């Protein structure tokens, strides 16, 4: 059974600082997704990573995928308050009919 683990689960950081959220998964896959969820809202797609070594950047967020280590990272550069949200990674396995298995989410709070 595929397991997806994120850490940390809670992250409080100051504006302007850098930090990384880690996503480990238990079964080989080269399809990993990052989503953002604001309180009481839906999930918004951030990144889709589809190959080993894939790196994608959008604003202050950069995601990467190492399929050999079964690890994805979401790096936050010079955090701002607007980035406060819960971030989920999710993995699907080939042949699973695109069944996403989610991590527990990382609640990020950026303090002024």
């Amino acid at each position: 059974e595929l397991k997806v683990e994120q850490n940390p689960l809670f992250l409080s950081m100051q504006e302007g600082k850098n930090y990384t959220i880690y996503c480990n998964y238990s079964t080989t896959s080269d399809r990993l997704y990052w989503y953002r969820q604001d309180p009481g809202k839906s999930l918004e797609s951030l990144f889709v990573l589809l190959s080993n070594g894939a790196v994608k950047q959008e604003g202050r967020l950069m995601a990467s995928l190492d399929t050999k280590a079964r690890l994805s990272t979401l790096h936050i550069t010079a955090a701002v308050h607007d980035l406060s949200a819960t971030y989920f990674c999710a993995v699907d396995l080939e042949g699973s009919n695109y069944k996403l298995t989610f991590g527990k989410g990382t609640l990020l709070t950026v303090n002024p």
Partner: protein
Amino acid sequence: DTAVSQTPKYLVTQMGNDKSIKCEQNLGHDTMYWYKQDSKKFLKIMFSYNNKELIINETVPNRFSPKSPDKAHLNLHINSLELGDSAVYFCASSQLAGKGADTQYFGPGTRLTVL
């Protein structure tokens, strides 16, 4: 203009009742999903339909029954509601290209509270 919409947004009901949640997508996607997000924000897939055919059917109580009248609509009917069914239910859709992978687009969610 809403891509994936759900109704109702909030649903408060008594234990033992039967209720339905509706989902519609106007993205032209072939595949739709139902997810449950519990009070700890853990997200778990329940069902998926590809062009009206059930392709993912996770281990959920058979009180939950999905129905897809066409590929743009996916409804979720829940019989004999229990306290543990209280959660946020999200509908999502994606374009299954047959190979590769595709983003799933989520609806706004339906917050179900069972009293």
